[in-house]
């Protein structure tokens, strides 16, 4: 089972290594990890997606809390939250295919952000399912390159 953990950390060098080392040192695999500064420049937020049973997850959270540079850990999977991911896809788009690609892009409310004779580059945000669906539909055209940010997430409502 996948879990989304949101971690507030001191915005300092070495913190990412401590967090990721904690996972690797215990043989936990990270599915994705996103870091960015928050509104407070001394604090960063990490969104980490991991797989594991409840016991593994409980240990991960306790171990994260034990790190001196970690301010707060929440398990978003346990509460109402929204998740988003951003993907950039370079698809080969020779003349005839172009219209077809454009149509799919419109249906998905994605955007074309770059074109040349051979390729179009598509940008889309969405949850994991939507992104996977777009990728599947693009595969037949020939994906040249693809990059995903990994999941970021935030709890719903005013808490």
């Amino acid at each position: 089972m996948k879990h989304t953990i949101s971690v507030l950390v001191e915005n300092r060098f070495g913190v990412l290594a401590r967090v990721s080392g904690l996972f690797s040192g215990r043989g936990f695999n990270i599915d994705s990890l996103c870091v960015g500064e928050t509104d407070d420049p001394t604090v960063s937020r990490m969104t980490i997606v991991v797989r594991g049973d409840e016991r593994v997850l409980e240990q991960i959270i306790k171990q994260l809390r034990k790190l001196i540079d970690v301010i707060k850990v929440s398990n978003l999977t346990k509460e109402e939250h929204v998740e988003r991911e951003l993907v950039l896809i370079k698809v080969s788009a020779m003349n005839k295919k172009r219209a077809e690609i454009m149509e799919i892009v419109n249906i998905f409310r994605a955007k074309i952000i770059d074109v040349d004779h051979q390729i179009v580059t598509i940008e889309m945000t969405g949850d994991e399912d939507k992104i996977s669906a777009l990728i599947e539909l693009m595969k037949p055209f020939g994906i040249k390159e693809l990059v995903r940010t990994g999941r970021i997430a935030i709890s719903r409502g005013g808490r």
Partner: protein
Amino acid sequence: MTKMSGAEILVESLLKEGVRDMFGYQGGAVLPIFDVLVDKPINFILVRHEQGAAHAADGYARSTGKVGVCIATSGPGATNLVTGIATAYMDSVPIVALTGQVPTHMIGNDAFQEADIIGITRPITKHSYLVKDVKELARTVKEAFHIARTGRPGPVVIDLPKNVSTGETEYNYPEKVNIRSYNPTYLGHPMQIKRAAKAISKSKRPVIYAGGGIIISGASEELLKFSETTNIPVTTTLLGLGGFPGTHPLFLGMLGMHGTKYANLAITESDLIIAIGARFDDRITGKTSEFAPHAKIIHIDIDPSAISKNIQVDIPIVGDAKRVLQELNKIVTKCDISPWHRKINKWKREYPLTYKQNEKLKPQYVVEKIYEVTKGRAIITTEVGQNQMWAAQYYKYTRPRTLLSSGGLGTMGYGFPAAIGAQVGNPEAIVFDIAGDGSFQMNIQELATAVQFNLPVNVAILNNQYLGMVRQWQELFFNKRYAYTSLEVSPDFVKVAEAYGAVGIRVEKKEDVTPALKHAIQTKKPVILDFRVEKEENVFPMVPAGAALNQMIEGMA
């Protein structure tokens, strides 16, 4: 305000933290620091290998309760500290390890004697700092000591680039630490404490299982009161020995792999286990699925991540052992459990901890005599292996901080430098390292340190000419195939002692043990006692790795 160099700021900050003794080794990246140190009121002990400095700081910390401090140069000096840092980490020992580092502008360039010691020690430290700016130094030292000694203690590394030591700034030592993300929980939750008291009052077969946390939090008196008030028997881990009087009628001895049979049986039949400052290590639990199958478990620990890690806990209480026991002691009453006591006393009579006495020199006998001759008032350190287990089984520890042993990491070579550290911290104490012939050779070079600084430590080598504990496993589980465990070639330890300027005594006969020990204590010099013990003696009882606690192999008494 006048400016000071980083090295001066460092040493002033150490003095502010109350540091009076320090262990370490010289080198290029730390030269400026030593240049300041030499004029300050800090008793500096120059070891002969940095590993010795880390273990000595550890032994100092465990025996005094203060933070131990060690220092080494960059690169190889720093990497030589690693085993000592890991040892301290596993046993929650507060040490601060200072390492030199190449100048900041050279970091990452594979400069001469550069090693990423922060990266290397990340998984074996409670926290670590690379000081990049001399302005950060005073605050860093303040935080490092605070983190090392509070909560669940542990080692902290401060990496000091050479230009930070030589750089200058104004010196202001902060009055307070403010780390927003670090607030250990000391007070147990009152509801949980009430629940625990209720469970205790209802139990019929309770056992207290106490670990090193008792000693770290200074909770031995509270534990004694708790046990005597409730009438509940106590077993301890290796690191818990001394946290409860070893001579007390309610004491069951150590539990686990080489624990007493009655402690392990009591755990197995118990209906309530009260774990205090212990972490259900695999050497304690044996097969976890069969550990205390009938018991509810109360777990008091300052580290939330220790709770329900190996064994599911019914009543967790996160907090400091001493504070929680103080609260519990206000509400608990005597348990009506005479049948349980009768059962335990029967086990104690039926399965006492013994060994086969004959005319030969037995290692257990040597340990018993050390106990007798020192009247149980010595500080004992151990190496690792059979020597360590016999030291745990046959010496009765009655006071906290009198047994220093590498439990979690099991580091051979720990005992001798730890003894040096303990002697520095307790100049009046009689200190014995109960050693193995293998382990002692891992840090034998520290003999020079002991001699140079007039530290009258005693090393009692239980010389069985084997890596005895490994040989025991080969005997029991590998058809007696003694692959690479024979130490038939070892130096003449008496001559080695003499070569270093220490005293060497060889003991081959039983009747010579007591006089030799008495003589060693009297000399007031470092002494190596080479006890030529029975070579193939085994440590019993023994729970084979992975077996349940009640599946013990017993020796023939």
